[in-house]
């Protein structure tokens, strides 16, 4: 039903698509978050992701369960990267299959929004002269 993963290795969208492909569902919706080259106007050299892995997987499962309560999700893949990532690397993939498209968009957006609220994963931006834990301070 759910494929939840936290990994310090590159994430693979095709793995997620293969997992969610399901014969009774016509719509697959996918969100992929990548490392951007700037943040608040400053050039980002790399990002470092740290996770409280055990708890992060639990929280990801809670999000998936809640999404499944709200929408008719057949399968859901939720992968998050940890470690050092460079420009263009994939930080997160959320893929899910639903009978119809509208519920797929809603469910996928719900999951990524919820991830950013509750899943214990932290992102440090490394700039040319300094570094910063994202969202830590006002």
């Amino acid at each position, binding site marked *: 039903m759910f494929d939840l993963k936290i990994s310090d290795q590159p994430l693979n969208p095709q793995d997620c698509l293969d997992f969610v492909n399901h014969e009774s569902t016509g719509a697959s919706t996918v969100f992929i978050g990548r490392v951007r080259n700037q943040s608040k106007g400053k050039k980002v050299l790399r990002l470092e992701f740290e996770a*409280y892995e055990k708890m992060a997987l639990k929280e990801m499962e809670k999000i998936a369960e809640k999404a499944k309560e709200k929408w008719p999700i057949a399968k859901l893949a939720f992968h998050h990267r940890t470690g050092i990532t460079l420009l263009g690397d994939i930080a*997160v993939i959320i893929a899910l299959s639903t009978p119809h498209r509208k519920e797929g968009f809603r469910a996928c957006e719900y999951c990524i929004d919820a991830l950013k609220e509750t899943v214990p994963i932290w992102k440090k931006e490394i700039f040319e002269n300094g570094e910063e834990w994202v969202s830590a301070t006002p």
Partner: protein
Amino acid sequence: MFRKSDNNDNMKINILAFGVAKDILGSANFEMEVKPKLTIDELKAQFLAKNPDFSKLNSILLAINSEYSIPGQVLKENDEVALIPPVSGG
């Protein structure tokens, strides 16, 4: 060491710190001896008192055994307490 009987009542908990909380504490993982039946709110207050930098953060939540704690929750021997600064995954 003089109040040995008191110390014996104390319990050991494990602290995990992540992200900026790890930077503030200077350590990611350590043991702590606390008084029995300490609540999570009391523990948080201790951390804030000893590390004023925590109050500069947007928030600091505590998790017990990899679940977000609830106010008033009482700690038990060997609990794993994680310091959760504002998350920023995705």
